[in-house]
């Protein structure tokens, strides 16, 4: 028993592991709760796109000597607006608009990285390094978690109604498109902190996977958020242990732990 306890406690004698666990919980809970709406509203592609389109913002911020989060957030907000605007024009379908914007932005980010020979410096942003989070990163995660979870709580009935029946919502004066922009903005914020945990490439997994697993286990939205948050937290912990004991990258380990939760949920559901 005490041997097991030692195995569990041992990694957290290191400060960076403590910070990593705190970051994993903050990011996991934020992504999981917002992810419930991402899954229910079938916005998984947008979540993935927003994560990828932060890359040019990250690279430009790095080259200019700014805080990387600022560049990522700016790129995310611009992308959210561009996707909404392009889709609103109805000249092309929304998924096509997303496909165009996201691949172009990601290509631009890679292009600038190649020109600046900054692959090595920015690889932690591509694949995440939760063990390298700083105190200011943690502070940002707390703020983003408060904003996202607070907004979801305060606007729960409005987000729910515009998701379920946008025509009725509009008829009582509640704009579905404005609520969609609110969600896109929350997504952009969430992606910025998700990048610290698992990187640009895998952030959408934190949004989608725990929520998808929770959706198999319960059918009430608040309960779904609680279960998704628990799965995300557990996945974060498992990922960190795997990173510590098996010497593997923490980001992919977290994502694979969450994926295992989906398989487990599917088995339980049967």
């Amino acid at each position, binding site marked *: 028993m005490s041997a097991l306890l030692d195995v569990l406690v041992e990694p957290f004698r290191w400060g960076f592991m403590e910070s990593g666990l705190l970051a994993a919980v903050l990011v996991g809970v934020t992504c999981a709760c917002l992810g419930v709406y991402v899954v229910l509203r079938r916005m998984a592609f947008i979540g993935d796109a927003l994560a990828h389109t932060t890359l040019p913002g990250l690279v430009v911020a790095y080259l200019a000597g700014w805080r990387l989060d600022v560049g990522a957030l700016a790129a995310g907000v611009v992308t959210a607006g561009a996707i909404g605007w392009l889709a609103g024009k109805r000249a092309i379908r929304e998924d096509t608009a997303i496909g165009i914007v996201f691949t172009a932005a990601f290509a631009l980010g890679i292009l600038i990285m190649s020109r600046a020979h900054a692959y090595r410096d920015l690889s932690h942003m591509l694949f995440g390094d939760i063990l390298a989070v700083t105190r200011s990163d943690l502070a940002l995660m707390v703020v983003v978690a408060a904003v996202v979870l607070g907004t979801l709580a305060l606007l729960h*009935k*409005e987000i729910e*109604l515009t998701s*379920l029946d946008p025509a009725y919502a509009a*008829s009582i004066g509640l704009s579905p498109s404005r609520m969609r922009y609110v969600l896109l903005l929350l997504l952009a914020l969430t992606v910025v902190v998700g990048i610290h945990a698992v990187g640009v490439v895998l952030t959408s997994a934190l949004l989608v996977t725990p929520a998808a697993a929770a*959706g198999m286990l319960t059918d009430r939205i608040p309960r779904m958020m609680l279960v998704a948050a628990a799965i995300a937290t557990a996945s974060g912990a498992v990922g960190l242990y795997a990173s510590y004991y098996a010497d593997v990258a923490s980001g992919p380990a977290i994502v694979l732990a969450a994926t295992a939760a989906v398989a487990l949920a599917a088995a339980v559901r049967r």
Partner: protein
Amino acid sequence: MSEPAAARPTPAPPHASAPRFPYGAHDREPADPSAPAIAAEDLRVAYPHSPVLALADVDLFVPQGTRQALVGPNGAGKSTLLMAAAGLLPIVGGRLTVLGLPPGGAPRRVAYLAQRATLDWTFPVTVRRLVMGGRYAHLGWLRRPDAGDAARVDAVIERLGIAALAERRIQALSGGQQQRALLARALAQDAELLLLDEPLNAVDAESRAVIDGVLDALRDEGRTVIVATHDLGRLEADYDGVLYLAEGRTVAPPPGGFVVDAHEHGHGHGVAAHGGAGVTRGCGP
């Protein structure tokens, strides 16, 4: 039969357009019991980003406290007219007032019930939660439903005969039960004017009887109900007036009746020709 000039509504005073999304805001003007529920004159409506008119030169006058049917074949413009009255579509030309205000100007007093297929029925909410949505127009931002709202929801769920299903997920309901849940939400809104898009389409006999009873009671309560319907057998008995639409225009009732896809709607048969285009029997302005 064309509408007699005397029966035409007095042109409503020009209004600034309604606030686009006045969720939770107080209605712009106090209720005017003398204002028609709906008055349309030479109304033209187009869907956003479409150059084609979905409604052209439609005239309609519906006094408060009456029940009006919108009849026509698929694509005639029935749903478009209801959506325009609910403030969901831009008015391209002509005039349309709802309870004396521009469309969308009184969101709490107008309940819109779209066709059942427009909802995401897989969305994980219970029947009670769906019906509670009818209270949001009164609650607005940041306010949570209180005991009074819950009591109102319980009452309308009971009235529609779906109390036993209140905690069930909406996905698990039959078509008729879904329709009753939607009507319950419209009742929970406590609106003066109800715009119902095919509430009797493909519902079972029990649901049909319940919905019919509720519609009768609404008229007795002095509420106005406008129903887009393919149910042509009881127009004269159930409605105070009928507006016939075809290809986006008001038309006289065709002698042989409209051809309705019986497979899709199940209740189609010839139109009983009574009243005329835009005429509301016994109800002058």
